[in-house]
């Protein structure tokens, strides 16, 4: 199990927030929680003999308070996950432990929290504040809490956010018995850092965003430990393991979104230095919604997103259709394909969800991977492989029931 790594500065924050808690007169207090039970069924056994059936549960209580004057807000939200097969998928994380103070024309947010940047749906290029909890789901949208001091200035010219990021978090990777995993185990206990301060290094970020009528714009810069480590092969007895290497990077990002009638045109692009040559990556596309089709309450949303990444010869593109049934249970279904024209790989996915009663929700997710070459253990050649080769046996269906407490 990945322990809660709390370095000195984080401890100082916790102390500061506790002081703020104890000196505030409270208005609203809320205690909430979520409990999810997840079952994943794979069509075949894994390449390394991993089981077909995997299950886990996640528990995330939340305590929220507000000061009487409505100027200070506190939230504490831990998250615990336990997986029946893979120890590396167990998690104890503080998603939130934060104090927000609202001033006359600024806000400060101190503590552990999450912040999202970006406009696109199928890839998130610009988003960098939080580390990805990559074993939680395949879409990479689940994040780990990030300790920070954030000053947010909201003026006529937009919102300017300044961040001091107190230390960084390490990405989660599946273990030996876990799925989906790579042909080699990522040794998350022996990461390599470029910085001598390792994960305690203080990083900085800045983002400006504003809108001009139907145009939304954001420009950001991040300087610090990468959230996307390179995986370095290393000898491990007779076999090979991978060590995550966290280099110091500089990344500048641009986000643009333009609304024209029912269309949302989107662009996210970054340029990053610090991990080998400077590279550029971008995702661009659109989302278009048709409301009330076939004289029903069904809405159809079309998403097409194209990718480019200097690090890859060809990047996959994404096309998806979202069905919003607009019924009492808020039923949704998303069908999509990721395809790579150069490798011929396609990856078909389905995501659906439906409310059950007032306090629970059922989600399903399915992935089918096609077109890659089958991989046999140590014969895997990183230089010749296609990105999805190691996922050939990993077709799965996932069901999750979430109960809101």
């Amino acid at each position: 199990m990945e322990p809660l790594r709390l370095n000195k500065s984080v401890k100082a924050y916790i102390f500061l927030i506790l002081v703020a808690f104890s000196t505030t007169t409270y208005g609203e207090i809320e205690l909430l929680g979520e409990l999810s039970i997840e079952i994943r069924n794979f069509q075949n056994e894994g390449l390394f003999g991993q089981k077909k059936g995997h299950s886990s549960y996640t528990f995330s209580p939340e305590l929220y308070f507000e000061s009487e004057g409505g100027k200070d807000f506190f939230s504490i939200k831990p998250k615990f996950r336990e997986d029946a097969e893979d120890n590396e998928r167990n998690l104890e994380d503080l998603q939130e432990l934060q104090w927000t103070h609202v001033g006359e024309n600024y806000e400060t947010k101190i503590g552990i929290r999450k912040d999202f940047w970006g406009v696109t749906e199928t890839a998130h290029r610009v988003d960098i504040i939080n580390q990805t909890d990559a074993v939680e789901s395949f879409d990479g949208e689940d994040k780990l809490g990030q300790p920070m001091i954030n000053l947010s200035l909201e003026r006529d010219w937009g919102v300017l956010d300044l961040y001091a990021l107190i230390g960084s978090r390490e990405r989660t990777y599946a273990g030996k018995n876990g799925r989906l995993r790579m042909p080699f185990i990522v040794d998350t206990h022996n990461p390599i850092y470029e910085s001598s301060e390792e994960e305690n290094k203080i990083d900085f970020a800045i983002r400006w965003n504003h809108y001009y009528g139907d145009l939304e714009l954001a420009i950001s810069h991040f300087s610090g430990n990468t959230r996307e480590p390179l995986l370095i092969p290393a000898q491990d007895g007779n076999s090979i393991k991978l060590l995550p290497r966290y280099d110091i990077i500089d990344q500048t990002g641009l986000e643009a979104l333009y609304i024209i009638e029912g269309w949302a045109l989107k662009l996210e692009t970054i340029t990053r230095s610090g991990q080998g040559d400077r590279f550029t990556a971008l995702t661009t596309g659109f989302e278009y919604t048709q409301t009330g089709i076939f004289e029903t309450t069904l809405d159809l949303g079309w998403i097409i997103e194209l990718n480019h990444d200097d690090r890859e010869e060809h990047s996959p593109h994404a096309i998806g259709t979202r069905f919003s049934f607009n019924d009492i249970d808020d039923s949704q279904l998303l069908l999509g394909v990721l395809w790579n024209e150069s490798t011929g790989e396609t990856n078909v996915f389905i995501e659906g969800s439906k409310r059950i009663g007032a306090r629970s929700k059922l989600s399903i997710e399915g992935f089918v991977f096609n077109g890659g070459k089958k991989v046999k253990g140590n014969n895997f050649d990183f230089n010749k492989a296609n990105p999805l080769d190691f996922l050939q046996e990993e077709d799965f269906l996932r069901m999750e029931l979430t109960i809101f407490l």
Partner: protein
Amino acid sequence: MKNISIKKLVFLAIIFLYSLLSLADDASKGLEIAILADKNTEGFIDSQSSMEMQLTNRKGNVVTREMKSKRLEVAGDGDKSLIVFESPRDVKGVAILSFSHKNSSDDQWLYLPALKRIKRIASKNKSGPFLGSEYTFEDLSSQEVEKFSYRFLRDEDLNGQPNHIIERIPLDPYSGYTKQIVWIDTQNYLIQKVEYYDRKSFHLKTGTFSGYKKYLDKIWQASRMEIINHQNKKKTVLIFKDIAFKTGLSDKDFSQNSLKRSR
């Protein structure tokens, strides 16, 4: 023959002009009534309320949703509004910020608390059901006078009260309606009933407004709204609670940062 045709022509021209004038007259009378009705909500400065939405299906089963709403009057433009969902629990904290405009389409942002993400959305898609109810976002958004053209139809009693009946046609091409017939009482100029005609001019829904109360000596606010869908026989009731005006809200309470901490 010649004389007769000229006479006829003159007669027809008079009829035509008269009907044009009366049409113009109906239009200006309709607009006048709409302006008087709008006066009842003018000068509210800002407001806050809790809302309970009761959704009844064809079989009579009822489910409830709760939300909070804040509104701010903007001088010379449409209102700003923030709606935060409280229940059902899976959408708790989801919020919609909208800036309504008198002469252009509205600006709208959706906040998704699980992802901590603000998403700009196309306000064109306002004709879809709001939270699975029989209301659409369009029905619940700020009904600016400038968003419709008007025509006075007739006077008629409704529940024993004399009412003006006007027709209003949405000017927004993305409206879900071709027209709405509105009952406005002649005493206080309060909207009592609206019939909604869909894109095929079919009488789709009827909305009623009741429990009007006067605030700040000039603002009238209904405490209960009900809408019946004649096609699917479903009903939605909206009950407003804890209504307060002039609560000291400002632009800051309708900003991107406030959207992120709305709950």
